[in-house]
């Protein structure tokens, strides 16, 4: 057993810290959980993503031939932790391209597809921004229930239907789309396929779905006779479900380290704030309740860190994490929600101030985390879904839904 990271990883950590201190606007610590919402934030994110690409970090995990560095799992983990800690924007380029379109193409795309799309992502440019369209009005947790159809017509497929909760569709150049290609399949999760769709195609309409705090993250996307070349089918026709399960696993795995980074940064900021603020002539940090709330949260953050280590280590051993990624996501989401709640208590009356107003404390990150945390915990699988995964696949319990 060994709990030390290697010199390479520590050097990387140092490099990212330097990068963050140099490249990020100094007045803000940029925990950009909603970078795709405001134009100025998105602009910043895209400028940083280009710099990350130049540093070779953006797709560090990928093989050199596709613009990556073949970085180890440990390096990827450290990168995730640090990006979370510093709140580096542009890291995910709209969530999907870096984290799972790329890895998916490498797993089950063909060489032509890889050659075309991977360098676009690796460049950190606007043409490498993707959105992912899975959910539909009647297919959320029960994803296999999707109704959007793709019908073959010569060298093309014709797509009709509606997607919803599509993050970043308003920024994306490409869409990673799940559709039904065989609606008559005996089991509904057979008959699903994946397409890559140019968001500039005629027939695509993107409607914003603002969140309750006016952040523009989600969209509705309508497909009205959208024609897609058959060569944009990824993997095997009707095998989309199985491909997607692999992609989902990749995505979940990538969520843990930034969540840990976020958590630790937030706790550090809150501890600093509590030391500064005076209540009854004593710093708030002397308040027993505040001390213990923060201490408890740090313990959970450390648990999350070790959970990330454990999954990463499994990957280095060539093992497939069966339940660890679900555990880390659910645990991390709960932790973030909890830190939001704790943070709002520590901010006191100021917690109700709009995060972008001049009265806000700590640049509004606490309010933003608090307001976003229920949304984060829903994205890429609810708590319930993750617990079902752990119950069935790790504990061997029967299906519970």
């Amino acid at each position, binding site marked *: 057993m060994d709990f030390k990271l290697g010199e390479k990883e520590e050097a990387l950590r140092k490099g990212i810290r330097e990068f963050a201190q140099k490249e990020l606007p100094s007045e803000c610590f940029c925990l950009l959980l909603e970078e795709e919402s405001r134009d100025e934030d998105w602009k910043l994110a895209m400028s940083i993503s280009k710099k990350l690409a130049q540093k070779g970090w953006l797709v560090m995990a990928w093989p050199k031939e596709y613009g990556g560095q073949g970085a180890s799992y440990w390096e990827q983990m450290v990168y995730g932790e640090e990006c979370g800690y510093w709140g580096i924007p542009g890291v995910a380029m709209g969530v999907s391209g870096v984290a799972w379109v790329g890895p998916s193409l490498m797993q089950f795309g063909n060489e032509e597809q890889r050659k075309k799309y991977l360098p676009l992502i690796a460049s950190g440019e606007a043409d490498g921004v993707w959105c992912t369209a899975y*959910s539909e009005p*009647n297919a*959320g*947790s*029960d994803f296999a*229930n999707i109704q959007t159809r793709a019908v073959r017509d010569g060298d093309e497929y014709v797509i009709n239907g509606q997607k*919803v*909760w599509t993050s970043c569709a308003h920024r994306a150049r490409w869409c990673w789309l799940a559709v039904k290609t065989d609606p008559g399949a005996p089991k509904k999760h057979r008959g699903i396929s994946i397409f890559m769709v140019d968001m500039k195609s005629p027939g695509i309409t993107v409607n914003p*779905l*603002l*969140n*309750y*705090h*006016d952040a523009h993250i*989600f969209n509705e996307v309508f497909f009205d006779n959208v024609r897609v070349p058959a060569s944009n089918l990824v993997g095997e026709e009707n095998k989309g479900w199985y491909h997607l399960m692999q992609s989902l696993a990749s995505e979940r795995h990538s969520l843990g380290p930034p969540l840990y980074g976020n958590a630790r940064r937030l706790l550090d900021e809150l501890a600093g704030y509590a030391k500064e603020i*005076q*209540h*009854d002539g004593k710093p708030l940090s002397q308040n027993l*309740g505040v001390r213990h709330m923060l201490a408890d949260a740090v313990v959970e953050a450390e648990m999350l860190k070790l959970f990330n280590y454990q999954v990463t280590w499994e990957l280095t051993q060539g093992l497939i994490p069966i339940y660890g990624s679900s555990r880390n996501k659910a645990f991390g989401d709960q932790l973030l*929600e909890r830190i939001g*709640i704790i943070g*709002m*208590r520590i901010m*006191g*009356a*100021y*917690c*109700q*101030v*709009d*995060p*972008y*107003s001049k*009265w806000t404390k700590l640049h509004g990150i606490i*309010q933003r985390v608090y*307001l976003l*945390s*229920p*949304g984060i*915990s*829903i*994205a890429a699988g*609810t*708590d*319930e879904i993750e*617990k079902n995964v752990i119950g069935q696949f790790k504990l061997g319990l029967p299906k*519970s*839904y």
Partner: protein
Amino acid sequence: MDFKLSEDQEMLRSLARDFLTKECPKAKVRELENDEKGYDPRMWQKMAELGWLGLVFPENYGGTGGTFLDLVLLMEEIGKNILPGPFFSTTVCALPILEYGNEWQKAKFLPQVANGTAIWALAVIETLGGYKASEIKASARVGDGHYIIEGTKLFVPNANVANHLLVAARTSEDAEGVAMFIVDANSAGVEVEVIPTIAQDKQCQVTFNRVEVPEGNVLGDVGGGWDIVEFILDRAAILKCAEVSGGCQAVVEMTNAYAKDRVQFDKPIGSFQAIQHRLVDMFVNAEGLQYLVYQAAWEISTGFPSRLHTSLVKAKAGEVYQRTCLDAIKIHGATGFTKEHDVGLYFRRVKASEFAMGDSDLWEERVAAELGL
């Protein structure tokens, strides 16, 4: 012991429901969030006509002689429906005037409240945001037949549209040397700036630059201002909790309806225990909060409130509202996260109600003190 409302109360409640449903649909709530004033003067006038603005005043001050419990029932409906505007802030200023005001003050100010021509705002807390006498730094110096008030108040709800402010200011260095002043909001030196909040509820920063206030505008005794604040706190907390209780009920109801309606894996999601049991917890806590509110409100109405019963309501309400909304959003899935869905309207008000009239810590401390700790 009786859990039944009187016929009059039932009528008040059903009238309130009808009025709010008709006059203040959620589209209106959203509109008023973005409105500069934050309330609808036409609706305000109708509320005056319904007798809501002077609900607990005697008839000679233009009121309808209702009880505090009646007021609480109204606040509960307001909370269920979400009615933006200065009803709460005006009411919590009128109550102490009714209790501590001299005849001149009562005759002058209360009828204007009842008939809808006066809007009030309560200006107590400052930069630390807490309801503690020691945190009051705004000063009131004795001038020539008037006081001169200087200082800054924060989180003053609806001051942007108030004609009058009820202001706590320090008259001596003693910890509790605080007096309450009735200040004309149009006085020279009063500056109001709306603080953008998550709830978009028009809380303001109010700055007093050498504001002159006539001596006759001191409410109650000069040394006894903090007693008035305590009087307000107890009542305002229960009113605020009634609003929270109504909000919780509305959120539970909409979430329950969604859980029956929304089908995943070929079943309504309410048939999954993880969802169903969470809904049960939400429902039970909302119900408990409702009864806690009623008990305290009834006691205040009788004139013999138990300090324990009053304090514990606000100690609990914030946590219940927060948990209810967070769970409701999660049960709704991504839908609950959107601007279109009503649950977000309630969630964005959780913290405003938690920090109105002192946070849970303040009220938990009061409960602890009542336990003799």
